[in-house]
């Protein structure tokens, strides 16, 4: 059925609204990219890109501030946290999905109950604990508490439940150990969930501010959010440099998202729509 004139006009209005919303969504980021390429005089003189491009903001960012160090810290801490999270959560999620064992119900109930409690409640006692075991102002003090992801366990349990039991039986008949089953069968089958989980975990750890702000003291251990906040404090008016730092800070997440996009959107909405 071909749309009539009225319907066509309606569609035009919808597309116009969508275009405006798209412009609103991407303009700040476009401005951010443009701002990092302008000198201080051009920054507000030209709305977006100036005729004279310069990498000066980036040069100053790396020479006046240990930005590279913060970037490396963030990559190391986030990478380690996500790998530990992924390994522990998928292993435990597998056990909770495919085995019957004593205490299983109690463990799941306990985890579910703690999921409802917001992270700010545990900040103080966690700080006390980290202080007692001497991990204040250390990478481990960020990685170890960050590796506990109850959310991840349930995510993996949910997706591994759908792996057919026959597949696991067949492997057992072939003499596969239980760990081999996890490693060679369950993990490859869960690939989409792994993609979604990695992105969610990466974003959580990468953007984390409050906890690192509490336990990190020395600049050489700062992560990007903490480092950038310090940068803003030190160089309030040097917008070009601040924007360069901001852009480089968000770039890794954007790259990872583009790589894992499909899995992510599927994983994000799977639970919500079914539930």
């Amino acid at each position, binding site marked *: 059925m071909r*749309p009539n004139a009225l319907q066509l006009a309606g569609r035009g209005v*919808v*597309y116009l*609204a969508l275009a405006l919303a*798209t412009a609103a*969504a991407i303009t*700040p980021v476009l*401005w951010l990219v443009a*701002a990092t390429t302008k000198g201080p005089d051009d*920054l507000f003189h030209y709305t977006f890109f100036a005729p004279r491009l310069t990498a000066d903001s980036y040069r100053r960012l790396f020479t006046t501030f240990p930005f590279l160090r913060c970037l490396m810290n963030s990559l190391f801490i986030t990478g380690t946290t996500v790998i530990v999270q992924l390994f*522990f*959560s998928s*292993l*435990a999620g597998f*056990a*909770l999905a495919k*085995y019957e*064992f004593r205490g299983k119900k109690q*463990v799941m109930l306990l985890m579910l109950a*703690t999921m409802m*409690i*917001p992270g*700010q*409640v*545990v*900040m*103080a*006692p966690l*700080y*006390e*604990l980290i202080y*007692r075991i001497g991990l204040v102002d250390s990478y481990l003090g960020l990685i*170890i*508490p960050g590796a*506990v992801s*109850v959310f991840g366990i349930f995510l993996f349990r949910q997706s591994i439940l759908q792996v057919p039991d026959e597949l696991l*039986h067949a492997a*057992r008949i072939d003499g596969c150990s239980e760990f081999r089953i996890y490693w060679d069968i369950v993990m490859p089958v869960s690939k989409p969930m792994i993609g979604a989980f990695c992105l969610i975990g990466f*974003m959580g750890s*990468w*953007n984390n*501010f*409050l906890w690192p*702000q509490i336990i990190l003291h020395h600049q050489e251990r700062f992560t990007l*959010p903490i480092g*950038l*906040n310090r940068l*803003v*404090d030190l160089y309030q008016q040097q*917008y070009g440099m*601040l*924007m360069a730092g*901001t852009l480089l800070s*968000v770039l890794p*997440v954007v790259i990872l*998202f583009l790589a894992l996009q499909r899995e992510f959107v599927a994983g994000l*909405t799977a639970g*919500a*729509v079914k*539930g």
Partner: protein
Amino acid sequence: MSARSDALAEKRELAGEGVGAGWFRLQHKAAPYLFVAPFLILFLCFGLWPILKSLILAVYATNGPKSAVFVGLANFRFLMADPDFHTAVRNTLVFTCWSIFFQLPCALGLALLLCARWVRARELFRLAFFSPNLLGQVFVGVLFSVLFVPQYGLLNHLLHALFGIALDTKWLSNPALVMPALVLTSLWMYVGFNMIYFLAALQAVDRDLYEAATVDGANGWHQFFAVTLPSIKPVAVFVLITSTLGSFQLFELPYIMLRNTAGPDNSGLTVVMYLYNTGFITGDLGYASAVGWTLALGMLVVSLVQLKLTRAMKGVGD
């Protein structure tokens, strides 16, 4: 399942299939415990223990992690009487209301625009709307603090051109404008994220229901209230509760945009910022726990009320 594998291992053992048979059965029995153990140990130490400990800490006054004095409910009494806490609660609630009554309808509106069958490049639009959510609150805070700069900032120029607002509007140093600035920034950040949920729900609505409604002579508005809303209700309730809980925990955005302060006249002070300032800047971990539990209780009560209210509203749609 495990019984079958046990029987299998036994059969192998009886058949004398080498020395590995006993080991095979053992590793099968032990596997689930070994698989759960690493996570469980971490969880007990760094998840459960701090929660229990915070209940105890909440009735102590501490000076850093080293000294603690029992004070009973004094932390909570002080909290309830502290005008700064009242301001924090008020700001947090106002922000939450904006999220619920302004941002969520916008998200639903965008999803409705996108869900029509004939819309082309839907994936691209969805990606564009969602993309701001990739930026963490700290980075968005830094970016928007520059976009909001008086005189020169992009936002003032845009709003000046569109609505004629003054170019030197000081968003972040005028107490009356701090909240609008926060609301706008979080709208930009989260509207696409919530839209994704609404869109997924809208696309899952049974098409036959619409056809039946059309046959019955229902117009667009009728269809929306009689078919669309009831169908997406479970997802809508989920989005409502998660975005309320998220709003209750607002911290980084104002903290960064207001340059690590609570803003002029505490206009950007939120409950979590209050917790951070009173608990960690001053080093009173007991007080921080008390504020944390008050926040947790508030979140619980509000979610329960929302669940009750949305359940009660069921009758309207049916």
